């Protein structure tokens, strides 16, 4: 149990329970105002998220090329049976798993370490923070084009640097099936570590300095400060970045598609690329729908389990019992 969480609880209790100190300004808005504010977002959400999701759930049970009205050729579970035997799909799962593991083992710790460094006071701190965050601002497509040039097989910058260092021969950065996925992971790290770093930095800044002062008075070493104050109080931030990282990996598409189209021969293909290829290149919308349902389920199951067992401590009080004191 940490001080911050206790604070959250007592805040929640105060707001819900006793005399309402902020009641005057926080009056419940009328139904009309509520509707006016909620309707646009709700309509868009229904139209562009919920309806397509339900429709995909429907078309996943058909053989359908997407042309000429609604699907008619009912196929039962055939698409799903094909899916679980599809080597490309199973390969996608493996590749996604690898990138997830690498992200959690390499990318996030690196971002964490940098955040700790950038929390210290030193000249040029702001410039460094800005610099490390810049790659995150680039769109994925631009990043892919950029690295496509860097790793270009003949006149690429990467090979030129290696040659300048005296290395013999070239590396098939994107053409060697054994390393292309690691190259892509490197690019993903370059692009996203700044984002995680900013989150960690914000999390670190929220830890009250008094805690460190008190611990120092008690004679705690730097290592102990980190182990018993920083790490536990950064817990919520770490858990949410892991969550964002995993969900982002499951949906990985733009960067990889522009860079390699998932090749050579599926070596860097992701779930979303397989879905796109099946749906829009091969015209097998039914099968692609089944794949998208699988992606949806993977994300959903992961999100539910993660929320239930990992994030639950963080969201308790904040999300689940705002109304607790009133009833």
């Amino acid at each position, binding site marked *: 149990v940490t001080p911050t969480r206790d604070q959250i609880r007592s805040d929640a209790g105060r707001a819900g329970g006793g005399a309402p100190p902020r009641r005057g300004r926080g009056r419940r808005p009328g139904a*009309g*105002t509520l509707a*006016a*504010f909620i*309707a*646009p977002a709700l*309509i*868009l959400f229904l139209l562009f998220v919920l309806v397509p999701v339900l429709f995909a759930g429907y078309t996943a049970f058909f*053989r359908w*090329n*997407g*042309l*000429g009205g609604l699907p008619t050729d009912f196929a039962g579970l055939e698409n799903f049976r094909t899916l679980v035997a599809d080597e490309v799909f199973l390969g996608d799962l493996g590749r996604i798993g690898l990138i997830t593991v690498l992200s959690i083992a390499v990318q996030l710790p690196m971002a964490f370490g940098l955040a700790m460094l950038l929390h210290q006071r030193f000249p040029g701190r702001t410039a460094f923070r800005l610099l490390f965050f810049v790659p995150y601002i680039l769109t994925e497509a631009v990043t892919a084009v950029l690295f*496509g*040039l860097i790793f*270009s*097989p*003949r*006149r*690429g910058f990467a090979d030129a640097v290696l040659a300048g260092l005296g290395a013999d021969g*070239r590396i*098939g*950065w*994107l*053409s*060697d*099936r054994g390393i*292309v996925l690691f190259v892509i992971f490197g690019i993903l790290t370059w692009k996203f570590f700044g984002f995680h770093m900013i989150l960690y930095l914000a999390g670190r800044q929220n830890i009250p300095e008094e805690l460190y002062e008190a611990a120092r008075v008690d004679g705690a070493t730097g290592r102990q400060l980190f182990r018993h104050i920083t790490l536990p109080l950064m817990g919520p931030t770490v858990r949410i970045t892991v969550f964002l990282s995993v969900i982002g990996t499951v949906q990985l598409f733009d960067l990889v598609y522009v860079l*390699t*189209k998932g*090749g*050579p*021969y599926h070596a860097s293909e992701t779930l979303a690329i397989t879905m796109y*290829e099946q749906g*829009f*290149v*091969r*015209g*097998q*919308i039914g099968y692609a729908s089944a794949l998208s349902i699988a992606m949806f389920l993977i994300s959903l199951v992961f999100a539910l389990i993660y929320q239930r067992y990992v994030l639950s401590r963080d969201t308790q009080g904040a999300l689940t019992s705002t109304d607790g004191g009133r009833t």
Partner: protein
Amino acid sequence: MRNPLRRPRALLAAGAAAALALTAAACGDSGESDADITFWHIQNEDPMKSTWAAMADEWSEESGLTVEPSAIAVEDFKTRLSTQTQAGDLPGLYNTWGGGVLAEQVEAGLVRDISGLECLDKVNPIALESYTIDGKLYAIPFDQGVVGFWYNKDLFAQAGITTTPTTWTEFTAAVQTLKDAGITPIALGAADKWPVHYYWTYLTMRLVGLDGLAAAAEAGDFSGEGFVQAGQLLADLAAMEPFQEGFESATYGEVDGQAAHMGEGIAAMELMGQWAPQVQRDASGTEGPGDALGFFPFPALDGGPGVATEFLGGGGGFAAGADAPEEIEDFMCYLLEEENQARAVKDGNFSTVAADPAAVVPEMNAEQQAIADALAKATDTQLYLDQAYPPAIGSIINDASQGLILGEIDSAEFVTMVNEAWAAEQ
């Protein structure tokens, strides 16, 4: 209680909400155009890009209708068009290669029947074949040609090769000679997949013949000995490592891609269609090999019914979306006027489809002459398989061709993949 500000606030809220909804509606509509005719073509480099735009403007002035040309790179074009097909709304006038892809669009009722076009006498009837489905015409041609080996005469000479190979044995020997001389024998953009499928297609054309291919497509069964053998020959060729370094992730038309390797005179040959010399120049930003560029047909193979005068080929055409205004036929005829055909041949380096070639191109350049000679000698042609067959089959053939040359699948697995795709399509 009654705050005088409340009413304006509510108004403001409603206004903001309405503005948001409008923005969203406008976003949903961004793919649409206000022009009467949208015109999608794939000549995204000058001079041809500007020439199409100029023709569109000229006709637009004459007819009073607006035309909006969009130049789209070929790979993007294919995906955008298939999305557009699924949305059931094809552009007013758009590039097509005919075959199974066009047939699927026709079947969905998205393409205008132009059998009654008044200016068809301006084109060679042979060029209309790819666009004729069940006796009805759905597109006008503007280019017609064949796929074959474009080679760099200087590099061949440098390796000591004096005659172009006419049999597969001679061909593989030439590849080895080039390799021994330290020259990259073949440029290939394997990431795009379709450049690889030309090899497999040509090998099957030689080993099972055009009739054999047609019969296999009819039955959805590519299990014949010839198909497996064709895959094996391609795998054997790949095992010689004849392609440039990094071909696995190279594209056809981009930086350091297949065409650029030819344009810069680094690779000795590529298997490509009539557009190859132009793309070599565009992709490399150079003048290309120039006079050193030669052409020879895909070699003959012993033991099969196919002969070297049977070509893989096709060309570009324009089909009209079903919703296009009826003046679209006027526009098509405008494009087919001899003067405009001549401009397209000159600026786009197309192979003419004119009924009277002399009227359109009195003097062909060497590249155009090479294609014209091949067409004149051609005893039969086969449309690119990724266009001739439905997309689900064509893309499997492309995919499997890539897997085969990377050694990820063998020729038996190739055949199984294609058969399964046909079975799923039935």
